[in-house]
């Protein structure tokens, strides 16, 4: 295979130059009167808003509550997805009956369900957790389902001849195989968990990062909306970094591609 090496320092330099250039263009455009700050805000304004939120400490509460909703949604969604996936993959009938149903549900843009969840569960944390869970559960379900269905038959045969009972088979072959698929969809499912929580907050709540954005929007405060977005980007970046670390540990047995 051809390996093209990339100069990391060059990549970072270009990235930073592009970012700084973009921000300078934005700020300059606003100052020169070309861009209307009412609609487009400005990097300075966003920074001021972020500093203000940090100073009064409110932002940490909002981040905390969003992370909490997201974690609950992710955990419950993952567990439910794994159990459903496992049961359906192991039972030919249940699989045949419900797999298309799951695929159909998965095709629904679940974000439009958010108003329903808020209607049913109120403005509190519950509706956000369910929103987040509803997104995660399908990702994990399909990962588990495929992971178990796609186990190499030779592996199963080998395990059985080596003396594996049905519990051993589950523990030493089926679950590790499913986990490898779940891990590889970890980025997607964690991302979905965050989206679910934020969208839920955005549509109706009194706390959380999504609420910050929706509140700023209702005040026609473009700077606040952008500041909220910046917070989300930082959260997503941080989570992505963490997942990368976790992934590297959990999939040590896999050949590393381009890492």
């Amino acid at each position: 295979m051809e390996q093209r090496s990339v100069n990391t320092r060059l990549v970072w330099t270009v990235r930073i130059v592009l970012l700084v250039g973009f921000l300078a263009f934005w700020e300059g455009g606003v100052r020169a009167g070309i861009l209307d700050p009412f609609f487009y805000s400005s990097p300075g304004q966003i920074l001021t808003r972020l500093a203000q939120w940090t100073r009064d400490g409110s932002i940490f509460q909002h981040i905390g509550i969003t992370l909490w909703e997201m974690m609950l949604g992710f955990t419950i969604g993952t567990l439910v997805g794994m159990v459903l996936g496992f049961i359906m993959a192991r039972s030919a009938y249940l699989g045949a009956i419900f797999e298309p149903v799951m695929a159909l549900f998965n095709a629904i843009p679940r974000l439009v369900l958010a108003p329903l969840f808020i209607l049913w569960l109120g403005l509190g944390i519950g509706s956000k957790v369910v929103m987040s869970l509803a997104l995660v559960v399908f990702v994990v379900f399909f990962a588990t389902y495929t992971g178990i269905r796609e186990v190499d038959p030779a592996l199963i045969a080998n395990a059985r001849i080596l003396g594996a009972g049905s519990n051993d088979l589950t523990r030493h072959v089926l679950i590790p195989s499913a986990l490898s698929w779940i891990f590889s969809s970890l980025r997607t499912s964690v991302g979905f968990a965050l989206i679910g929580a934020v969208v839920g907050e955005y549509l109706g709540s009194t706390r959380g990062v999504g609420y910050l954005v929706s509140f700023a929007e209702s005040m026609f405060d473009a700077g606040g909306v952008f500041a909220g977005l910046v917070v989300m980007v930082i959260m997503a970046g941080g989570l992505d970094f963490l997942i990368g670390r976790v992934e590297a540990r959990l999939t040590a047995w896999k050949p590393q591609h381009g890492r």
Partner: protein
Amino acid sequence: MSQVQIRLERITMRFRRRGQEPFTALQDVSFEVEAGRFVSVVGPSGCGRSTTLSIIAGLLTPTSGEVWLDGQPVSGVQTNVGFMFQRDALFPWKTVLDNVMAGLIFRKVPRQKARDKALEWIRRVGLSGFEHHYPYQLSGGMRKRVSLAQTLVYGPQTLLMDEPFSALDVQTRDLMENELLALWQELRKTVLFITHDLEEAIALSDEVIVMTAAPGRVKARYAIDLPRPRNVLDIRTDLHFMQLYEQIWADLRDEVMASHSGIRSTS
């Protein structure tokens, strides 16, 4: 005095295929393997050699006929055999050590004891220092050694080997064959070895069974009376080896041709 370790009685295997004629992989296959013997089965591809092994191991149930292993009728998956697969069947998420230990852990052997035995076998197949590597970090030959250790660690009396070395390069293959012979010489297991390579079959075995093109039947059996211990590299230039080769190849050739033309030989 020697007892029969594997006995097949009129095994027929028919596979039903959706929308097609059922496919007969094996037709009335009967043979015996005496304990402690190294027997190879050769035949054209698709003659049901692998199917035969799977049936002996209880992974497949024959359409008709009976299999006896160590005096017991085979029903269900047999755990008193060792099976080496053609493809890699190591657990990719387990280290070499955990892979070799697996059979013992499944047999409820205490962990410390299983570990000690596994380490001993890893040493015997020459993989000391690789205990904590994952399969993807090993070469094809090394993975085969792990498979061998994984199979031998729980001491099965019968080894069923399904073209175990066919995916290896020639040099590695010669090496593995010699090591297998050395181990066999020492352990005296009963080995049933499937291969498409007649040279390999003769070099390793006490007996070679030739199967016909599909539906597979036993066409002929040849005793290989070459002296042991053998070296698979040297033995190929032995005059008697070449005579045996020509003799068996004459038989096998017809079947290979038949399987290629898709027409059953009428012999």
